[in-house]
């Protein structure tokens, strides 16, 4: 988890409310990723960034948006949280396009 923090680590919110998760890195890596992890599905990519203000969709992007205004921060926003977005969210960083990824400690989000 060195060099990557996620906040908050735990959050409980109500259906319909907006939620923003933050990923912060101190490694100056170009690539940043948001995944969700659910039982039976492994990790699924939500969105990723290949540079400041450069982002693209992943496998399960519906209902999520992202922003990256600085190299070190990658924000994931749920505009209107739904119960299906209850999950554990992981941020990851990578120095190169095809290289190994380093993961943050995760955020456990519960939508009631």
């Amino acid at each position, binding site marked *: 988890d060195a060099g990557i923090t996620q906040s908050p680590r735990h959050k409980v919110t109500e259906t319909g409310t907006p939620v923003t998760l933050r990923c912060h890195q101190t490694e100056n890596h170009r*690539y940043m990723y948001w995944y969700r992890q659910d039982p039976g*599905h492994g*990790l699924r990519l939500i969105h990723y960034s290949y540079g400041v203000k450069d982002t693209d969709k992943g496998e399960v992007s519906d209902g999520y948006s992202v922003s990256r205004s600085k190299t070190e921060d990658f924000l994931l926003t749920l505009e209107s949280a739904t119960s299906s977005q209850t999950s554990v969210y992981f941020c*990851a960083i990578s120095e190169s*396009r*095809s290289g190994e*990824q380093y*993961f*943050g400690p995760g955020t456990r989000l519960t939508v009631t």
Partner: protein
Amino acid sequence: SQQGEEDPQALSIQEGENATMNCSYKTSINNLQWYRQNSGRGLVHLILIRSNEREKHSGRLRVTLDTSKKSSSLLITASRAADTASYFCATEGAYNTDKLIFGTGTRLQVFP
């Protein structure tokens, strides 16, 4: 959709035994990576093998790759209780770069 599928889903062994996990994938790849996840933690990168490599070693880990069968195996020799974790393969597609597709994982339990 999952690119990689691990087999078995769960594996229980005694300390000192070897553990073998397999990963099958569907499309051509640039590289395949293995990660470990301890309960409640983020993923940790173990090893990366490129499509033109057949075998790699790292300490007690041995990874093989058979691109003709679209499969990889991870062997952990002389397992320890501390190896108890979930293990995931992840592939970077040959035509879908910039991101990894993760499998659903193998849960390994090593009994002392």
